């Protein structure tokens, strides 16, 4: 059965009808606030607009002659997607905040909202994309022809013989233009998003993927016997076996450059920018797209090699254009329905690209090229006429038609002298020119307007010279000698071997030179030149986008206008209802009342500019606003003043920070001191209560016995003298206690009077021992004095040291063994330290008590059974005295083996002695009475 032309046309229109229905439905849903495209899957599918007729037909054609040479175009985007998480996310964030409507808007906005830069980018994009659009036209019209003529010969019909009106490509161009107009320019919107368009593109992505998988599956498993079968058969044909290796896939250098090229293309092709950035609903959708887009690319490429090799096996070499294998193989097998499905897949791929590309180009041309031109030079001075929105839409619609017709003209001009892939690569190389300005723009604050304009122009000129012009020359529109021997026969200027650089394919060659001058121009002039104030502000906002909150528009202008003026400007582009809504929202947020407040301040003007930017692009919006608003750029003096103020504020806040840190520190110190004070206070309370308690005990007994004596005058004399004795003893104890407390408080408060003299400790010990000799004898204690070692002198208070010695000795006597008491007193000298030890053979002191006994009122022992035998202040006082003189007092003891109290005193050099004057040595005493311990 032959496929009738009518059927093909009917199916095509039916398919486009379905797309309309989908688009219409999702637009309706969007208006109702229930978006169908607001999910990561549709978003990812819409990004697959990357796969055009080039992928659908061209990849097979390319693979048929290069093996895996077609792959870099898909590997590049796969790798780039990994970087999207950083790069694309940033671009999306910036674009949302600045209401970016296109890639031209993005670049111009970054470099100071410059109209000239926006215009340049637009021109590059249009000229660069025209070959790409012609590629789609060619593919669609070829596929029409193949289906129509039903023969392989159709692919090679000499187009130059046709008139325009008998050429299907012309009608295809018109049809696509119509489609793009209906979808892309229905109305003006402040966000410039097209829900219906995105939904339709998502659907097309499904259709083209399914169609390709079905035909691939049919060829691989229907005609052949699976992958292995095709490749094994191909391996028997030497000519095809070369496709198994990198032999025909181009050099490794070309391979790498192609990958780089496609990395740039997936980001900066106007249609990719439109889909990824402008149509993005939610930044989070990017996460899924990062792996889903590469997966899509992988799937649509799985059957490319089997189809290519299958086609080469099925058709004699050179008869059928390999670009049409997908279509011609099913037809040759009589599978017309399958061929129709493939045709629809190809149509999807081509229409998707053309629609999105023309819509994004028309936005750029109208916003960045024509509007600014009209606003600047227009005899109309548009600001006077009403309803500029209508004008804008007309401009866009005309642009779509013009761009498609230009594509058609290029298609007619170059004819079929190029394969699909090589045409597409010319476009890729053009949009790669945007890369330096954009990457520099979002990561390098120094990049300036001059650099961007220079880099872009130089790169574009280089691209035109090394790729675009030669493509026209090869088609006979320029002399072929232009390529062969350079212009005017200058060999060094040959477009494919500039300065004699050869060995690269034309694409790589062009890419190298254009990138060299582009990056070079951009960087050098950015480093040399200066930024204007607005450039500086935009640069900071773009690069530091993550540091900014919304609505944080730094503006270095003071501008004033009236609300009615602002309203009238807005109403030229937006419907009055929309303007009302926007202004009311603004008023509500800031508690304004438009009936009273009609002065438009800088903030409102910025708001209006951003609203407008969504419709006409930032460059046009700026021109429009500037025409109506009195803007005075801030003068240099004021600027310096502001800067100065700012830096003062910064310095002040630093100072504040510093102060508050110091304050915190002081607070914590105070808190610690307070704690200490509380502790001391508690100690003092304890001390007083202990002292009073200690005083009360002897007082009570004195009083008790005095009462007995008083009440019983007839007591016998033995009893009486016994009681009197007790009263006397208790009195002595009381006196001792009071003396001790006084001593202690004197020492602690530093009011103790010290009478310093040079001492020979030997003498002091002998004196002290003599004092207690009687007591020792009474207790039957053996005293062993070891004073044989010759020792140096020390400077100290003789009475105090005697007090210490007596205290230690009386302790020793008290705790000595009752039966065979033995006390050893020894004097020695080690390392400039005199040491005196008093050893008894009493019960000893447990390790955990060895420090406690130096606490006030701590008496070790069973306090319930043993009567306290001292005041509990002796040892604390001794330690205070010894440490006062720079020595140390401690105890060494093991329970059952007696205790050994040792104190040390520093030696005084002999030439300083012999004087009763107070020596230079002043022991360190703290105000709170605690004496610093020195190591002995």
């Amino acid at each position, binding site marked *: 059965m032959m496929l009738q032309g009518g059927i093909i046309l009917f199916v095509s229109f039916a398919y486009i009808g379905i797309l309309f229905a989908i688009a219409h439905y999702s637009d309706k849903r969007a208006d109702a606030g229930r978006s169908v495209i607001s999910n990561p899957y549709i978003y990812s599918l819409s990004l697959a607009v990357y796969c055009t007729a080039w992928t659908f037909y061209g990849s097979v054609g390319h693979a048929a002659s290069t*093996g*895996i040479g077609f*792959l*870099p175009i898909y*590997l590049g985007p*796969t*790798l*780039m*997607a*990994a*970087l999207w*998480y*950083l790069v694309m996310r940033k671009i999306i964030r910036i674009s949302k905040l600045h209401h970016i409507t296109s890639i031209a808007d993005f670049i111009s906005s970054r470099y100071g909202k410059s109209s000239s830069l926006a215009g340049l980018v637009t021109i590059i994009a249009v000229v660069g994309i025209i070959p790409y659009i012609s590629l789609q036209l060619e593919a669609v019209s070829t596929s029409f022809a193949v289906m129509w003529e039903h023969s392989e010969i159709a692919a090679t019909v000499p187009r130059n013989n046709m008139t325009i009106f008998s050429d299907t490509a012309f009608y295809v161009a018109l049809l696509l233009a119509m489609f793009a107009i209906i979808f892309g320019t229905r109305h003006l919107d402040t966000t410039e998003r097209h829900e219906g368009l995105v939904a339709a593109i998502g659907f097309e992505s499904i259709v083209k993927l399914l169609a390709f998988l079905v035909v691939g599956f049919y060829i691989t498993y229907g005609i052949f016997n*699976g*992958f*292995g*079968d095709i*490749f*094994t058969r191909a*391996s028997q044909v030497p000519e095809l*076996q070369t496709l*198994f*290796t*990198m*032999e025909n896939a181009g050099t*490794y250098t070309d*391979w*790498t450059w192609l*990958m780089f090229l496609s990395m740039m293309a997936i980001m900066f092709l106007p249609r990719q920018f439109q889909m990824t950035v402008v149509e993005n609903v939610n930044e989070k959708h990017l*996460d*899924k797209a*990062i*792996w889903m887009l*590469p*997966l899509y690319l*992988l799937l649509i490429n*799985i059957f490319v*090699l089997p189809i290519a090799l299958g086609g080469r096996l099925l058709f004699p070499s050179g008869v059928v254009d390999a670009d049409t294998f997908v279509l011609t193989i099913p037809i040759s097998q009589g599978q017309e329905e399958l061929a129709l499905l493939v045709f629809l897949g190809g149509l999807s791929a081509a229409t998707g690209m053309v629609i999105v590309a023309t819509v994004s180009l028309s936005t750029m041309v109208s916003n960045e090229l024509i509007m600014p031109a009209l606003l600047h030079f227009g005899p109309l001075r548009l600001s006077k006429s009403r309803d500029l929105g209508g004008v804008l839409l007309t401009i866009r619609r005309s642009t779509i038609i013009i761009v498609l017709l230009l594509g058609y003209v290029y298609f007619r001009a170059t004819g079929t002298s190029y394969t699909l892939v090589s045409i597409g690569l010319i476009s890729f190389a053009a949009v790669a020119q945007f890369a330096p300005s954009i990457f520099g723009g979002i990561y390098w604050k120094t990049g300036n307007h001059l650099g961007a304009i220079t880099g872009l122009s130089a790169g574009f000129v280089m691209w035109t010279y090394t790729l675009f012009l030669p493509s026209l020359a090869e088609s006979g529109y320029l002399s072929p000698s232009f390529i062969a021997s350079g212009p005017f026969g200058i060999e060094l200027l040959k477009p494919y071997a500039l300065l004699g650089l050869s060995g690269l394919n034309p694409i790589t060659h062009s890419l190298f030179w254009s990138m060299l001058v582009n990056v070079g121009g951009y960087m050098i002039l950015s480093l040399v030149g200066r930024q204007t104030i607005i450039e500086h502000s935009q640069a900071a906002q773009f690069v530091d986008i993550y540091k900014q909150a919304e609505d944080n528009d730094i503006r270095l202008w003071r501008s004033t206008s009236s609300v009615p003026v602002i309203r009238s400007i807005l109403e030229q582009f937006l419907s009055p209802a929309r303007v009302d809504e926007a202004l009311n929202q603004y008023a509500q947020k800031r508690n304004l009342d438009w009936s009273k407040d009609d002065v438009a301040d800088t903030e409102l003007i910025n708001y209006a500019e951003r609203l407008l930017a969504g419709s006409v692009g930032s460059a046009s919006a700026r021109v429009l606003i500037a025409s109506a608003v009195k803007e005075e750029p801030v003068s240099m003096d004021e600027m310096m003043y502001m800067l100065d103020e700012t830096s003062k504020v910064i310095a002040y806040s630093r100072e504040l920070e510093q102060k508050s840190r110091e304050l915190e520190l002081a607070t914590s110190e105070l808190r610690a001191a307070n704690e200490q004070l509380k502790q001391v206070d508690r100690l003092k309370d304890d001390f007083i209560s202990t002292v009073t308690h200690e005083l009360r005990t002897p007082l009570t007994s004195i009083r008790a016995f005095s009462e007995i004596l008083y009440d019983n005058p007839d007591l016998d004399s033995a009893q009486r003298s016994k009681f009197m004795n007790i009263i006397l003893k208790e009195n002595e104890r009381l006196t001792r206690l009071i003396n001790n407390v006084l001593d202690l408080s004197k020492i602690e408060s530093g009011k103790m009077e010290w009478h310093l003299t040079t001492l020979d400790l030997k003498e002091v010990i002998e004196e002290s021992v003599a004092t207690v000799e009687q007591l020792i004898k009474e207790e039957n204690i053996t005293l062993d004095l070891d004073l044989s070692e010759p020792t140096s002198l020390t400077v100290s208070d003789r009475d105090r040291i005697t007090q210490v010695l007596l205290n230690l000795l009386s302790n020793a006597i008290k705790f000595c063994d009752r039966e065979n008491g033995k006390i050893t007193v020894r004097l020695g000298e080690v390392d400039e330290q005199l040491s005196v030890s008093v050893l008894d053979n009493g019960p000893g002191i447990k390790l955990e008590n060895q420090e406690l006994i130096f606490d006030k009122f701590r008496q070790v022992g069973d306090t319930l059974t043993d009567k306290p035998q001292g005041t509990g202040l002796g040892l604390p006082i001794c330690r205070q005295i010894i440490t006062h003189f720079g020595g140390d007092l401690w105890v060494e003891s093991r329970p059952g083996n007696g205790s050994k109290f040792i104190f040390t005193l520093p030696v005084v050099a002999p030439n300083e002695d012999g004087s009763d004057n107070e020596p230079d040595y002043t022991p360190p005493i703290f105000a709170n009475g605690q004496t610093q311990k020195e190591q002995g």
Partner: protein
Amino acid sequence: MNRFVIRGQRLIAIFFIGCLLFNYPLLSLFSTTGMLWGIPILYIYAFTSWLIIIVLMFIAIKLRH
């Protein structure tokens, strides 16, 4: 912000792994006429590496820490 940074760094690493896998000289190692299961080794290498890169990206995005 921390998760954002570490995820970004993982994806950068995947980018570099991919650059290595798909370029000279690793690529040239597989440029032979040999076949495995009836499929040229270069094709198997290219497509499996591709799939691995995609799986790695999927994991990097999914990982919550």
